[in-house]
């Protein structure tokens, strides 16, 4: 009964809160759609709806920031990282998860890899910039390799934790039929871990897509950009043309916004699973 009464104040509070989220996004959209001549110094001038709807800013922003190239790089890096992470991390999670209880070696490997979670990128970045350059990896593939290493601690922790709930009898049945461990893994364990694959894919994809620091440090000499990196590198070219800058920001946000709208449920589940485990 009490809960029914407190319903409206709670709703009002939540709607007010939403304004703080909606306002910066609204501002981004209206500025991106306007021309510099429509921007007066008053708030009304900046925040009013544009008089004529024009996509000219977007066309120009795409040209200035080499949008399609950056988008392509971001997609390539994210997709390859996610696929490699699912394969590599689940394999290691499996090897470690099945053995760490009885083997000193595997429990050491587990601790060794998982403690990598505490290593800040700041300490790795300078040696890695040198190392990747020496190995000819100062490009998108070098960035992918680094991501596979950086997200290994978290993902191995998740996978080996998930394996505890998968009965070993499942594998033994297959082994009795003469299947090798390798085949058993791909035929039985890998498919069973599907919910964890989804979690790992979501967490890794979000982190990789939005990361600035790794490509900034590693791809500096390659003349290639990811979507966020392009915003950083072309910032000076926008000058005081904020309409152009905001069109570019909006373009950089649209892919992840669409992804979020389509897969909202999976993303929320994935994030919660990842954090609480």
């Amino acid at each position, binding site marked *: 009964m009490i809960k029914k009464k407190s319903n409206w104040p709670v709703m009002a509070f939540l709607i007010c809160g939403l304004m703080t*989220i909606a306002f910066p996004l609204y501002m981004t959209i209206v500025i991106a759609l306007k021309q510099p001549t429509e921007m007066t110094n008053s708030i009304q001038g900046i925040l009013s709806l544009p008089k004529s709807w024009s996509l000219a800013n977007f066309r120009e922003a795409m040209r200035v920031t080499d949008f399609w190239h950056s988008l392509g790089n971001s997609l390539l890096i994210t997709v390859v990282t996610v696929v490699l992470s699912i394969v590599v991390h689940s394999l290691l999670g499996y090897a470690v998860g099945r053995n760490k209880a009885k083997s000193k070696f595997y429990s050491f490997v587990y601790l060794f890899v998982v403690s990598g979670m505490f290593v800040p990128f700041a300490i790795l970045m300078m*040696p*890695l910039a040198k*190392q990747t350059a020496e190995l000819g990896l100062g490009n998108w593939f070098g960035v992918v390799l680094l991501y596979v290493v950086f997200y290994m601690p978290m993902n191995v922790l998740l996978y080996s934790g998930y394996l505890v709930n998968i009965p070993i009898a499942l594998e033994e049945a297959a082994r009795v039929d003469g299947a090798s461990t390798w085949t058993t893994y791909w035929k039985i364990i890998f498919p069973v871990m599907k919910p964890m694959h989804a979690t790992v894919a979501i967490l890794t994809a979000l982190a990789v897509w939005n990361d600035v620091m790794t490509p900034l440090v590693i791809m500096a000499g390659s003349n290639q950009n990811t979507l966020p990196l392009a915003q*950083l590198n072309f910032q000076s070219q926008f000058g005081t043309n904020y309409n152009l800058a905001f069109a570019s920001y909006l373009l950089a946000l649209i892919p992840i916004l669409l992804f979020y709208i389509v897969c909202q449920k999976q993303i929320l589940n994935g994030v919660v699973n990842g954090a609480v485990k």
Partner: protein
Amino acid sequence: MKNERKRTFLLITIPILALFVCFNTIPLIRGVIYSFTNFKGFGSYDWVGLRNYMDLFTDVRVGKSYLFTFKLAIVTTIVVNVISLILAMALNSKIRAKSFFRGAYFLPNVLGALVVGYIFNYLFTYIIPAFMDMIGLEAFSSSILSNQNTAWIAIVVVCAWQSIAMNTIIYISGLQTVPEDVYEAGGLDGATGWKKFRYLTFPLIIPFFGINMVLSVKNFLMVFDQIMALTKGGPAQSTESISYLIYNNGMSGGQFGFQSANAVVFFIVIVLVSVTQMKISSGKEEQL
């Protein structure tokens, strides 16, 4: 049969472990080695023993960056967790359109921190001063980003705007583990409002509080993108986070060796803070 299984596990583990060692352990060791040199990032270098570490503790700029980073991490953690807890309770109560609200409130978390920083940069530089002017508060009509005493507040706001989403979701999943009959029993004993929260709800979600504390502090100590987008460390180096200082002076400022020493100390600080936090929160759990 047993051998085949053992061999497969080894064949899986060794190459992956090698990859990890190659791009995590080796650079870590190289970073430690560089910290004992006067390496500029190019050319030849000499061993300088512990001099970088001695200099670190007397370097004003480094000291300032630690103070700033910790101030930011502590204030943002408190702000974020207080708001997240309130929001989580609101979102967990019986309301209409619950899943819409949850989805909308999580949105900031999926957006890239750099672009969000740029958007807020404009908001702080133009919109808020213009708004203050309009309502007649001329004292606040200059941008908080241009004042070295207030610029850090802008960074707190942007960090909070994005991370509240994450912490709220974790608190909601915590609140969902609290069984309804706990409240019913508490209600009979007359627990309402703050008392109900303090003695019933909060103790039951302490593990989730622990997760949030560790996540928040660690993330905010490593803050970088927001600094890059909002202030670039300024004005007057008042908002240089440790990561930003290491990047800026180490990668392009010719202080490769010195900033490596800084990074080593930073690494130790992160480990100490995280381990202490985990000890505290797991200790609390046992008391329950």
